[in-house]
Structure formats: structure tokens, C-alpha cells
């Protein structure tokens, strides 16, 4: 009974703290910014860092005097890696907490879950992670990479610079790898790669027993043609995957692996010596030599009070997205979502690689694409980059269903999926 009582007490205490952080601080003269990232559950590993990044950015903005003469106030909720809970928490943020914009989500399934809420309540979501494309919502701003800003340039690099002729598309079994691999397969075939030279493989989330998969890759790669692995393996399954590659003696010089979900944060948990030379494609690396990057890293280390913490690509996406929103609010003179939606198109802010990124009419942004090789110290060394910025493409040109679609949220078109052949907008909001 005693334990029951104390349990209740803690529960009350917890509720009180939650309420305190939520509403007690709320005064009329602040602008509220929602942060919708999982702080518990499987995605907490990646998303907690993004919550901290947002808190840091908001704190910095407040030091600069806030926005429109008001202070910014962060409202943090925890959707606990639970996809339906994302939608509930989003509704809570918009309806109850009255936030002006929300920065959040990591997995595509969580984004799909909150999408109807944002459209119904006409609010703003800034989504910072690379994703599979095939979507353009009036209410979502995609600051991560679309497939043509990550996957396609990476394949181009391997094909043109390394001379790869045989391809293994290895992915975790869910929507992002499946769609990306569909696009890549179509792209490779369009480039004249034979069907026999493409091997597509899926493994479940958290897969640990990689021995047969790696043996299969090894066998596929011993056919006399230069082979590379394009990996959309997600989360912590990467650690045993790379370990097995090292143990079976597959070096990056023989069969390079280019990954789209492995960044500095993921590598900080493993011994990278056997991985030297394997590749990753991103729009930002911590090792990038630029002044904005140096000061960002410095600020991050000061904020998180740990010099060993790394920065990564989704953090840069939040940096860009947040600054774009700030600029758009200044331009519109109000935080009203409808006004910000119009004002933000065309806004350009500095990215961390030393250039400017701009918000395009399709709600995607312009970014440089970098290919990096893993180093012994867990950092990436840039070995190739696109000569200019790449515009994010919402609808892939390589899929039959989407190649005729374009997205342009400016008037008069105001449509996320306008079909240039039939001249019709499907009328959906996304």
C-alpha cells in the first residue's frame, strides 16, 4: 500500500512539473515554438540531440533580442517514439499551447502521422531529416534532403568517379529505404545498368545477425565488376553491419559502402578503424571548414557543456529551418502561419557549409551535396561535392507515378502535386 501511495505522489509530482514547464511560464508577450521530438523510446537516441539544438537556437535568438520585440519560448513535448502519439502531441501543441510553429519529427511514419493535424489546423512544421520525397504539403517545410539531394548524387559519384558497375541496395524494411531504392533502381536502369547487376535486400529494424547478408554482398561483389553498396540501413543495426563487414575482410577499397543514415552521431558509438574509407552522403559534415560551422560547433559545445559531442546533418537542417522561420516572421511582421507560409518562400539564410540556402516554392530548400569518407577518429573527410547548390525535388523524376508532378505553393498555382500533363491539381493538400 505504501508503495502505491508513493507511486501516486510521484505521478502527481510529474504532472505538476509537466504543467509548470508547459503553461505556468506562458505569458502573453512571448512567441511560442513547439518542439516535437521523441525523448524516450527507440528514436530518443537521435531525436534528443535535435531537441537540444532547438533549445540552443531559441536561447541564442533570445539573446539577440527575440523576435518582433517579444521573447521566444520553447514548448517541449515527448511523443515517446510512438507514432499515433505524435499526432496527439502535435494537436496539443497547436490547439492548447498555441505555438506559432513546430520543429520536429524524425521518421517518415511520424511525419505522415502528424500531417493531417497540421493541415486541419493550418500550422507550420519544419521537418529536418532526409526523407524519401513524394510529398509536398502546404504546411510542412522539408529542410532535410530529398532523394535528389542525397541518394542520386551519391550514386553519380560512385558511377563516375569510382567506376562502379554492380550495385547492392541494402536497406531496413520500411518506407524510406523502400521508396529511395525504388527511385535508385529506376535511376540506375535509366543509366543503362543491367537488372542482373542490381541486388536489393531488406532487413528488419534492429537486425543484428549480418553474417549471411554480408556474405551475399561479398559473393555478389566477386563477379569481376566494381561493386558498391548503397545502404539505407537505419538506426543501430548499422553497428553490427559494419562490424561484420570488417570481420569478413571487406574493405572500402574493394566494396565501398555509401550510407544515407550514418552520420557523426551514429559513428560516435563504434570503433571506426575497420570502417575507414566507407562513405556517407550528406549536406553537412562536422569536419566542414567554414566560419559559420566553427562558431556553430563552439556554441553547441558551450551549450551542451561537453566538448566531445558531435554535430550532424539534421542539426544543420534545424539551424537553417529555424533561421528561415525567423526571417520569414520578420518579413511578414507577424507569426500568423498563413502569412509566414507566403513570406518564407524565397527566404535565403546562411547554411553551415559556407553558402546560402533558400526556401523554394515546393517547400524544399537548396543545399550542397557532400560525399565524405569515414576517418579513424569518427569524422568524415569530404572527397567530393556538387559544384553548386541542388534544389530539392519533391516528386522524383524517375518514378512513373510522380515524374509529371510538380509542386508550387505560390499563387496562382498553390498546389503540391500539379500534373503538368493533365494540367490538374489533385486537390489534396499534400
Amino acid at each position: 500500500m505504501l508503495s502505491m501511495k508513493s507511486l501516486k505522489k510521484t505521478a502527481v509530482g510529474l504532472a505538476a512539473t509537466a504543467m509548470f514547464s508547459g503553461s505556468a511560464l506562458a505569458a502573453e508577450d512571448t512567441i511560442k515554438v513547439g518542439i516535437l521530438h521523441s525523448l524516450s523510446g527507440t528514436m530518443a537516441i537521435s531525436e534528443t540531440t535535435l531537441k537540444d539544438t532547438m533549445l540552443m537556437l531559441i536561447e541564442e535568438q533570445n539573446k539577440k533580442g527575440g523576435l518582433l520585440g517579444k521573447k521566444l519560448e520553447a514548448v517541449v513535448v515527448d511523443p515517446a517514439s510512438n507514432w499515433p502519439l505524435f499526432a496527439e502531441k502535435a494537436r496539443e501543441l497547436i490547439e492548447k499551447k498555441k505555438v506559432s510553429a513546430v520543429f520536429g519529427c524524425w521518421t517518415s511514419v511520424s511525419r505522415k502521422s502528424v500531417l493531417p493535424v497540421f493541415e486541419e489546423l493550418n500550422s507550420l512544421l519544419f521537418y529536418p531529416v532526409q526523407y524519401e520525397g513524394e510529398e509536398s504539403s502546404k504546411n510542412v517545410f522539408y529542410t532535410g534532403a530529398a532523394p535528389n539531394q542525397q541518394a542520386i548524387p551519391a550514386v553519380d559519384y560512385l558511377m563516375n568517379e569510382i567506376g562502379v558497375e554492380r550495385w547492392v541496395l541494402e536497406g531496413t524494411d520500411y518506407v524510406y529505404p523502400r521508396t529511395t531504392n525504388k527511385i535508385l533502381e529506376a535511376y540506375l536502369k535509366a543509366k543503362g545498368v543491367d537488372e542482373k547487376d542490381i541486388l536489393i535486400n531488406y532487413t528488419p529494424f534492429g537486425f543484428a545477425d549480418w553474417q549471411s547478408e554480408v556474405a551475399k554482398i561479398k559473393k555478389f561483389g566477386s563477379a569481376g565488376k566494381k561493386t558498391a553498396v548503397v545502404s539505407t540501413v537505419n538506426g543501430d543495426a548499422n553497428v553490427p553491419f559494419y562490424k561484420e563487414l570488417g570481420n569478413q575482410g571487406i574493405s572500402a577499397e574493394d566494396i565501398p559502402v555509401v550510407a544515407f543514415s550514418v552520420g557523426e552521431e551514429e559513428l560516435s558509438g563504434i570503433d571506426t578503424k575497420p570502417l575507414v574509407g566507407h562513405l556517407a552522403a550528406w549536406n553537412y559534415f562536422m569536419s566542414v571548414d567554414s566560419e559559420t560551422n566553427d562558431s556553430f560547433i563552439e556554441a553547441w559545445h558551450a551549450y551542451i557543456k561537453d566538448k566531445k559531442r558531435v554535430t550532424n546533418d539534421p542539426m544543420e537542417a534545424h539551424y537553417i529551418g529555424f533561421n528561415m522561420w525567423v526571417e520569414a516572421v520578420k518579413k511578414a511582421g507577424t507569426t500568423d502561419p498563413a502569412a509566414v507560409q507566403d513570406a518564407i518562400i524565397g527566404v535565403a539564410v546562411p547554411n553551415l557549409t559556407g553558402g546560402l540556402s533558400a526556401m523554394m516554392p515546393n517547400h524544399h530548400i537548396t543545399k550542397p551535396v557532400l560525399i565524405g569518407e569515414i576517418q579513424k577518429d569518427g569524422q568524415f573527410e569530404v572527397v567530393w561535392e556538387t559544384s553548386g547548390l541542388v534544389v530539392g525535388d519533391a516528386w522524383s523524376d524517375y518514378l512513373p507515378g510522380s515524374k509529371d508532378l510538380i509542386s508550387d505553393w505560390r499563387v496562382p498555382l498553390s498546389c503540391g502535386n500539379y500534373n503538368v500533363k493533365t494540367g490538374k491539381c489533385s486537390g489534396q493538400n499534400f
Partner: protein
Amino acid sequence: MHFQLKILIFLFSMLVTHGAVAEAESKSFEQIKNLITSKSFAEKTQAVSLLAAHPERRTTEILNALLEGELYYRKTDKLLLITKKQNREYIVSDAITGQDLGVVKKREIKKITTNNSIRKKIRAALAVKQLDSEDAVTRYQAVNQILGDPDAEMVTHLQQRLEIENDKKVRQAIELALAITELESADKKDRLAAIAGVSGSIEPAVRGKLATIVADDPDEAVRKAAKKALNNISVQIQLYSFLETLFFGLSLGSVLVLAAIGLAITFGVMGVINMAHGELIMLGAYTTYVIQQALPELIGLSVLLAIPAAFIVSGLVGILIEKTVIRHLYGRPLETLLATFGISLILQQTVRSIFSPLNRSVVTPEWMSGSLEINSVLSLTYNRLYIIIFCLLVFVVLNIILKKTSLGLQVRAVTQNRSMARAMGVRSARVDALTFGLGSGIAGVAGVALSQLTNVGPNLGQSYIVDSFMVVVFGGVGNLAGTLVSGLSLGVVNQFLEPWAGAVLAKILILIFIILFIQKRPRGLFPQKGRSAEG
């Protein structure tokens, strides 16, 4: 007198020629320096070729440093430096003279970066230098390094080496390497001879070259010969890949057995449905991590030390769980299930609070990484090999404990007939606690093994709990040998299914098979006999 003069003249001429050589050398080094410090990878590649051809002895050290990422240059004058990093300090030496230059700050120097193709080139260049090594093993490795695509220069080097080579293994390797280059000869006869020379070799380089010949050689006879050779090779390879899959299956099976064998005691022998079993495994894995943190210099030893430590930690936690929760719930399986599920959540959250929700990295010791190369197709990874051995060891020790010790006797007595055992003076409560502790401790030991294979995180246990129950139920509840057989066979079946069904489908097929099997034989592979089975 005359003689002395001669010596003097000789010495003088030596000096002059040496001086001239040194001057030419420094000139070419100047060029190399400019190329290697350039940003362009193409120019760096050029520098590597120049370095490789350079007669200076220290080029090997420079190339090695470049390969290891230890070659830097001073920003002020582009002086090439070999650096050793020691606790945030950079100890540098002049790369060309080898002279020690003390300690510098990171800001003053810049690393010379490489990419995959440059590293490959360096390795080939170093291999050529090693062709004349004293050590036959080094020579053999060197030949294998350039086996695939030696350039013209390497071919002449190989031919020269072949004439003086006396080690049989190295000779064979060189002959094979030369035959592979002959496969591209313009002369049809040479190609045919080369095909005969390489047939029987299962080197991937040979297969690759033969496959291209089959695809686009202009001559019909050559294509046929190549196809025949390729078919011969693929028969051999099929055999090896069968052995490889078998090994994979046994290793996966051992992991399953290790994870399940603790459960075979607590669930199988005692009849307690312990949903916290996975978390006891996780505790073992975290024990390994903690010991590694305490002994950062002795990675190999720390893994060995972790085995008894994990047994004690998980065993004590197990005894605690038994004393506080499970003993009050004997004979009430549903409540036990719920209570232990709750315990599993508590344990997970405790670990999350102490160690953070992030995965911890457990370092694999040197002797457990890499693989035992049987030939170029079949190689057995050491970590899996050790885990198979370890699993069998644990099984044997556990059997001895249960069959030969007095504790084992008491355990079997209590499980067969509790009241009779008590009447004979066995303290059943104590035996229960110890048995549960034993099963839990074994789970901890499994955690040590798993920490070498998979991620050590708070959710580690969850991914093994279902598999563990599956193995125990399939093998027959209350039967240790059944657990061994069922774990190994499920592992092997899974690995044979995986290549053609895919990882996701293979797992589903196994589960369907077990459901059907349990319908037919509800007591598993090896049902327990006797009266206790009814109770």
C-alpha cells in the same frame, strides 16, 4: 703512396656522384611535395606513383604514414611531417630525413588526406616493395595484394621474382598472378594456356576475369574454355558456400542457445515464466562495458573477467527477484508473467537512467576480430568461432552442475517432487533461489557474448526474449539437451532460408514452422518423461 692516392680519388668521386644523386633526389622530392600537398586527388595519386618509384629508402615510411593518415605538412613551408598523436599533442618528425622535430600545435600543421583509390594504390606500391622481403609470409601476402590487376611494371617485377623465388607457396601465387595477366593477352594461344593455368583456382580475381572472357572474348574456343573453367570453379565454390552457411547457422544457433539456456533452467526446470530474462542478459552485457571502462588498457582480459563478473551480477539480481517477487507467486503463472514483465521494465529504465538511453560501445579485443581464412572463398570470423566454442563450454559446465553436484541433485529432486524432497530434508526455498540465480547468472554470461556481436543498449534483452522462449519450447520444456539441439537447428535452418527468402521472410517461416510443430507435438522435440511432466 700511390695506393693512398687511388683511394683518395675513389672517395672523392664517390662524394661527387653521391652529391649529384642527392641533388636530383631533392629535386624530385620538391615535385612530390608540391603534388602531395595539393587539394586535388588526381595530383596526390601522381605523387604516390612518384614516391613508389623513388629509390630513397624512406619512401616506404612516408607511404605507410600516408596510408595510416599520419602524414601532415607544416602550413608555413609545406615541410612533410610524420606525426604521432599522443594525448592531444602532435609529436612530429621530418618525413624525408627522419629528423625529430619535437611537439607542435594542431593549428600549425595540416593532414594530407587520401581516398579509397589512393589508399589502394599505396597498398599495391608497398606490396611491390615487399616482394623482396626476407619473410615468405610477407611475400605471399604481397603477391596476393596485387593479384587482381598488376600493371606492366609489377608484372616485370613478378617475373624477376619468380626466377629467384624458392618458396613453393609464393611461387604458386606468382604463377597465378602472371597467368591472370596472360588472360588479357592479345594472342589466342596465350589466353588458352592461361585459362588452363588458372583453372582450379577459386580466387575472385580469376572468376572476374573469366566471366569477362565468357561475356566478350572474340574467339569461340577461348570462350568455351573459359566457360568450362568457370563451371568447374563454381562447383567448388558451391561446396564452400554450403560450409559457410552451415558455419553461419551454427554460430546463430549458438547465440540462440546461449540466450535460451538460462531460460531453460528457470522456465524449463523451475516452470517460472520469467519475462525479465532478456534484461538479465542485458545486465551481463553492461557488466562487460563497465569492466572495460575500468580496465581501458586490457581489453582482452576485461572480456574474460567479465564472464564471472556478469555471472555474479545477473545471478545476484536473479536471486533478489526470486526472493522478493517470484517466491510469492509459485504456481500462479499468469501473475508471475505480469510481475516479471514489470520487473523487466524497471530494469530497463534503471539502466537507461544510469547509462543514458544511448547504446554503449563495447570494444572487441584484437583476438576476436578478423577471420580465419581457409581460402579466398571460405573464411570463418573469429568472434563467431569463439562464441560457438563458448556456447558448447557453457552447456557442458551447466550439465556437470546439474548432473554431478549436490546442488544439481537437489534441484532435480525439488523439481520432480517438491513435498517429497522437503520431507527428505532438502531446503526447497533455498534451492529455488539458487536455481533461479544459476539460470539468471547464465543469462548474464550470454550477455557477455552478445556484447561482442550486437549493440549494448537498454533494449538489448527485448530482442532475445521471444527467441529464447521459442528455443526452449521447441526443444522441449525441462530438457537442456533439447535446448541445445533446438537452438542449433533453428539457427542452421534460418541461415539456409535467409539467402533465398530474405531476412524478414526467413524469420516468419521459422515462426510458422514452430507454430505448426507445437500443434503436432505440444511438448517439443524432446518431451520430458515421467510423472513430473504431468504436473
